[in-house]
Protein backbone atom coordinates (compact mmCIF):
# COMPACT_ATOMS: atom_id res chain seq x y z
CA UNK A 1 0.00 0.00 0.00
CA UNK A 2 1.59 3.28 -1.12
CA UNK A 3 0.70 6.93 -0.87
CA UNK A 4 0.49 9.99 -3.08
CA UNK A 5 3.21 12.54 -2.35
CA UNK A 6 2.76 16.17 -3.33
CA UNK A 7 6.04 17.69 -4.54
CA UNK A 8 4.81 21.24 -4.18
CA UNK A 9 7.94 22.54 -2.43
CA UNK A 10 10.14 21.20 -5.27
CA UNK A 11 8.08 23.00 -7.95
CA UNK A 12 7.84 26.16 -5.84
CA UNK A 13 11.63 26.23 -5.52
CA UNK A 14 12.09 25.67 -9.30
CA UNK A 15 9.70 28.48 -10.18
CA UNK A 16 10.96 30.64 -7.30
CA UNK A 17 7.48 31.20 -5.89
CA UNK A 18 6.80 31.93 -2.25
CA UNK A 19 3.95 30.29 -0.31
CA UNK A 20 2.17 33.62 0.04
CA UNK A 21 2.37 34.47 -3.69
CA UNK A 22 1.29 31.01 -4.81
CA UNK A 23 -1.63 30.94 -2.35
CA UNK A 24 -2.82 34.32 -3.68
CA UNK A 25 -2.55 33.15 -7.31
CA UNK A 26 -4.36 29.85 -6.65
CA UNK A 27 -7.02 31.53 -4.48
CA UNK A 28 -6.55 29.52 -1.30
CA UNK A 29 -5.30 30.52 2.14
CA UNK A 30 -1.66 30.23 3.25
CA UNK A 31 -2.79 27.66 5.81
CA UNK A 32 -4.45 25.44 3.20
CA UNK A 33 -1.46 25.66 0.87
CA UNK A 34 0.75 24.76 3.80
CA UNK A 35 -1.43 21.67 4.48
CA UNK A 36 -0.96 20.68 0.83
CA UNK A 37 2.79 21.33 0.92
CA UNK A 38 3.28 19.25 4.08
CA UNK A 39 1.32 16.30 2.65
CA UNK A 40 -1.39 16.60 5.32
CA UNK A 41 -4.24 16.97 2.80
CA UNK A 42 -6.79 14.17 2.43
CA UNK A 43 -7.89 15.23 -1.05
CA UNK A 44 -7.22 17.85 -3.71
CA UNK A 45 -9.92 19.43 -5.84
CA UNK A 46 -9.30 19.33 -9.60
CA UNK A 47 -9.92 23.07 -9.67
CA UNK A 48 -7.08 23.61 -7.18
CA UNK A 49 -4.81 21.26 -9.16
CA UNK A 50 -5.59 23.19 -12.38
CA UNK A 51 -4.70 26.51 -10.77
CA UNK A 52 -1.50 25.08 -9.27
CA UNK A 53 -0.39 23.72 -12.67
CA UNK A 54 -1.24 27.04 -14.31
CA UNK A 55 0.66 29.02 -11.73
CA UNK A 56 3.70 26.69 -11.56
CA UNK A 57 3.69 25.99 -15.32
CA UNK A 58 3.79 22.25 -14.84
CA UNK A 59 1.83 19.03 -15.30
CA UNK A 60 -0.16 17.25 -12.55
CA UNK A 61 2.41 14.45 -12.70
CA UNK A 62 5.12 16.93 -11.67
CA UNK A 63 3.19 17.65 -8.49
CA UNK A 64 1.64 14.27 -7.66
CA UNK A 65 3.87 11.20 -7.31
CA UNK A 66 2.87 7.73 -6.13
CA UNK A 67 5.34 6.18 -3.71
CA UNK A 68 5.32 2.67 -2.30
CA UNK A 69 5.47 2.56 1.50
CA UNK A 70 8.84 1.27 2.74
CA UNK A 71 8.32 -1.78 5.04
Amino acid at each position, binding site marked *: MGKIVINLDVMMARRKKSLKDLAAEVGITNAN*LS*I*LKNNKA*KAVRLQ*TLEKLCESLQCQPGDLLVYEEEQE
Partner: protein
Amino acid sequence: MIEKISLKAVSTITYALIIFLMLMTTIILGGLPWIIKSIVTIDIGSGYQPIIASPGLYRYFLFFLYTAGVLAFLILNDLRRLFKSCLLEQIFVKENVNLLLRMAILTFLITLLFLTKVFVVNSLMTMAVSFVFFMASVFCLVLTLLFDRAVQYKLENDLTI
Protein backbone atom coordinates in the same frame (compact mmCIF):
# COMPACT_ATOMS: atom_id res chain seq x y z
CA MET B 1 -38.22 28.27 5.91
CA ILE B 2 -35.26 26.65 7.67
CA GLU B 3 -32.98 29.40 6.30
CA LYS B 4 -35.00 32.02 8.19
CA ILE B 5 -34.35 30.32 11.52
CA SER B 6 -31.10 31.62 12.92
CA LEU B 7 -28.98 28.92 14.59
CA LYS B 8 -27.29 31.56 16.71
CA ALA B 9 -30.64 32.96 17.95
CA VAL B 10 -32.05 29.53 18.83
CA SER B 11 -28.77 28.49 20.50
CA THR B 12 -28.67 31.72 22.55
CA ILE B 13 -32.25 31.25 23.81
CA THR B 14 -31.64 27.59 24.61
CA TYR B 15 -28.33 28.41 26.33
CA ALA B 16 -30.07 31.00 28.54
CA LEU B 17 -32.84 28.51 29.34
CA ILE B 18 -30.29 25.85 30.32
CA ILE B 19 -28.47 28.31 32.63
CA PHE B 20 -31.84 29.11 34.28
CA LEU B 21 -32.62 25.39 34.71
CA MET B 22 -29.16 24.75 36.21
CA LEU B 23 -29.74 27.57 38.67
CA MET B 24 -33.17 26.20 39.64
CA THR B 25 -31.70 22.68 40.03
CA THR B 26 -29.02 24.03 42.39
CA ILE B 27 -31.59 25.91 44.48
CA ILE B 28 -33.93 22.90 44.67
CA LEU B 29 -31.11 20.47 45.54
CA GLY B 30 -30.01 22.86 48.28
CA GLY B 31 -33.44 22.97 49.87
CA LEU B 32 -34.42 19.37 49.10
CA PRO B 33 -34.76 18.04 52.68
CA TRP B 34 -37.18 20.84 53.60
CA ILE B 35 -39.04 20.62 50.28
CA ILE B 36 -39.57 16.86 50.71
CA LYS B 37 -40.75 17.27 54.31
CA SER B 38 -43.28 19.96 53.43
CA ILE B 39 -44.61 18.67 50.09
CA VAL B 40 -44.25 14.89 49.84
CA THR B 41 -46.96 12.85 51.54
CA ILE B 42 -47.34 9.10 51.65
CA ASP B 43 -50.18 6.77 52.52
CA ILE B 44 -48.92 4.46 55.27
CA GLY B 45 -52.24 2.86 56.10
CA SER B 46 -53.71 5.65 58.22
CA GLY B 47 -54.32 8.24 55.52
CA TYR B 48 -51.82 10.53 53.84
CA GLN B 49 -49.03 11.62 56.19
CA PRO B 50 -45.92 13.74 55.61
CA ILE B 51 -43.04 11.55 54.34
CA ILE B 52 -41.12 12.15 57.59
CA ALA B 53 -43.61 9.79 59.26
CA SER B 54 -41.69 6.96 57.55
CA PRO B 55 -37.96 7.64 58.12
CA GLY B 56 -36.89 4.80 55.79
CA LEU B 57 -38.97 6.13 52.91
CA TYR B 58 -37.85 9.68 53.68
CA ARG B 59 -34.19 8.61 53.43
CA TYR B 60 -34.91 6.71 50.21
CA PHE B 61 -36.66 9.73 48.66
CA LEU B 62 -33.78 11.99 49.72
CA PHE B 63 -31.23 9.63 48.12
CA PHE B 64 -33.44 9.17 45.03
CA LEU B 65 -34.06 12.89 44.43
CA TYR B 66 -30.50 13.97 45.22
CA THR B 67 -29.08 11.37 42.79
CA ALA B 68 -31.61 12.28 40.09
CA GLY B 69 -30.92 15.97 40.70
CA VAL B 70 -27.15 15.63 40.43
CA LEU B 71 -27.45 13.50 37.28
CA ALA B 72 -29.87 16.06 35.79
CA PHE B 73 -27.45 18.88 36.66
CA LEU B 74 -24.62 17.04 34.89
CA ILE B 75 -26.82 16.48 31.82
CA LEU B 76 -27.75 20.19 31.77
CA ASN B 77 -24.06 21.14 32.05
CA ASP B 78 -23.19 18.92 29.08
CA LEU B 79 -26.08 20.46 27.13
CA ARG B 80 -24.80 23.92 28.04
CA ARG B 81 -21.35 23.05 26.68
CA LEU B 82 -22.95 21.60 23.52
CA PHE B 83 -24.96 24.79 22.87
CA LYS B 84 -21.94 26.95 23.70
CA SER B 85 -20.08 25.20 20.87
CA CYS B 86 -23.08 25.93 18.60
CA LEU B 87 -22.74 29.61 19.49
CA LEU B 88 -19.04 29.46 18.61
CA GLU B 89 -20.01 27.66 15.36
CA GLN B 90 -17.85 24.65 16.25
CA ILE B 91 -20.62 22.09 16.11
CA PHE B 92 -19.05 19.02 14.58
CA VAL B 93 -16.07 18.51 16.86
CA LYS B 94 -14.87 15.42 18.73
CA GLU B 95 -15.66 17.05 22.09
CA ASN B 96 -19.40 17.17 21.23
CA VAL B 97 -19.35 13.45 20.36
CA ASN B 98 -17.97 12.74 23.85
CA LEU B 99 -20.55 15.07 25.44
CA LEU B 100 -23.43 13.28 23.71
CA LEU B 101 -22.07 9.88 24.78
CA ARG B 102 -21.85 11.13 28.36
CA MET B 103 -25.45 12.38 28.16
CA ALA B 104 -26.57 8.98 26.87
CA ILE B 105 -24.91 7.28 29.86
CA LEU B 106 -26.30 9.82 32.37
CA THR B 107 -29.87 9.53 31.05
CA PHE B 108 -29.57 5.75 31.18
CA LEU B 109 -28.46 6.00 34.83
CA ILE B 110 -31.60 8.08 35.54
CA THR B 111 -33.65 5.33 33.86
CA LEU B 112 -32.11 2.74 36.20
CA LEU B 113 -32.71 5.04 39.18
CA PHE B 114 -36.39 5.39 38.34
CA LEU B 115 -36.63 1.64 37.85
CA THR B 116 -35.54 1.20 41.49
CA LYS B 117 -38.42 3.46 42.49
CA VAL B 118 -40.81 1.08 40.68
CA PHE B 119 -39.97 -1.53 43.36
CA VAL B 120 -40.17 0.90 46.30
CA VAL B 121 -43.03 3.31 45.59
CA ASN B 122 -44.49 2.57 42.19
CA SER B 123 -46.77 4.79 40.15
CA LEU B 124 -47.77 5.19 36.52
CA MET B 125 -45.75 8.42 36.41
CA THR B 126 -42.60 6.59 37.59
CA MET B 127 -42.88 4.00 34.85
CA ALA B 128 -43.63 6.69 32.26
CA VAL B 129 -40.60 8.75 33.32
CA SER B 130 -38.38 5.62 33.22
CA PHE B 131 -39.50 4.97 29.68
CA VAL B 132 -39.01 8.61 28.62
CA PHE B 133 -35.46 8.70 30.00
CA PHE B 134 -34.70 5.34 28.35
CA MET B 135 -35.83 6.76 25.01
CA ALA B 136 -33.77 9.91 25.67
CA SER B 137 -30.74 7.70 26.32
CA VAL B 138 -31.24 5.83 23.04
CA PHE B 139 -31.76 9.15 21.22
CA CYS B 140 -28.50 10.55 22.66
CA LEU B 141 -26.67 7.38 21.59
CA VAL B 142 -27.98 7.72 18.03
CA LEU B 143 -26.94 11.39 18.01
CA THR B 144 -23.48 10.35 19.25
CA LEU B 145 -23.05 8.00 16.29
CA LEU B 146 -24.40 10.61 13.83
CA PHE B 147 -22.12 13.34 15.19
CA ASP B 148 -19.12 10.97 15.06
CA ARG B 149 -19.79 10.35 11.37
CA ALA B 150 -20.32 14.09 10.78
CA VAL B 151 -16.98 14.87 12.47
CA GLN B 152 -15.24 12.39 10.15
CA TYR B 153 -16.87 14.03 7.08
CA LYS B 154 -15.97 17.52 8.31
CA LEU B 155 -12.36 16.53 8.90
CA GLU B 156 -12.12 15.09 5.40
CA ASN B 157 -13.75 18.21 3.98
CA ASP B 158 -11.41 20.51 5.94
CA LEU B 159 -8.42 18.60 4.60
CA THR B 160 -9.70 18.75 1.01
CA ILE B 161 -7.84 21.65 -0.61
